[in-house]
């Protein structure tokens, strides 16, 4: 059995995505551009634009990554889309 890739949307991105998280069931490596294409199928252009903005950071499996365009998700990975924090 293959684990899905999990997408997590924080802050206002949760509103754009219509929920805090969702899965991508399709197995195999998923590069950034293909991830964007999947988002575009499911969601508004506003969400696709938002996740590409410089100020939205990305964590994969709890690690914030420097260059999101270089990422390739593996099955079972969790990717989180992190808009600017509003602080404690």
């Amino acid at each position, binding site marked *: 059995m293959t684990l899905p890739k999990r997408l997590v949307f924080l*802050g206002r991105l949760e509103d754009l995505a219509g929920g805090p998280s969702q899965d991508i069931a399709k197995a195999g490596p998923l590069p950034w551009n293909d991830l964007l294409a999947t988002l575009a199928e499911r969601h508004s252009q506003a969400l696709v634009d938002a996740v590409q903005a410089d100020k939205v950071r990305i964590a994969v499996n709890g690690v914030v990554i420097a260059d999101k365009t270089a990422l390739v998700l593996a099955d079972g990975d969790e990717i*989180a889309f*992190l808009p600017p*924090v*509003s*602080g*404690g």
Partner: protein
Amino acid sequence: MDAPVPSDVRLLASSFDPAEELRAFAQAHPGSGGVVSFLGQVREGGGVEALELQHYAPLTLPAMEALARQVRARWNLDGLLILHRSGVMLPAQPIVLVAAAARHRRDAFAAADYAMDHLKSESWFWKREKVAGEWRWIEPREQDFEDIARWQ
């Protein structure tokens, strides 16, 4: 010299009693001459009916723990307490409590101040407020970036 007391860092999903937490913290550090604390609470008045802090479990608490280590490395403290709420809070409820116990007053003040500036500007929380029945997300504040720049 005794081994240093570990920092007490907690991310809390439900309300807490800041007065009792401070009592326990001060009692746990009877050798400290001074305890500085900051209590942040949801402001009553101004029309905010509720506040929600969203966190992301893989990042939020680990980053708070890393901040505590930074603070301990930078100042000579006997103890450090960092409590932070997540979830929905009502007016007058506590959001954050930071306390630093030290032999020297100056260390305790600076440590609590630094911890708050970094919690406010860098910690992994997303905040929304309910005003007139509508939730709206809060953008980062320019003041927070100025506050943190003081330490750089």
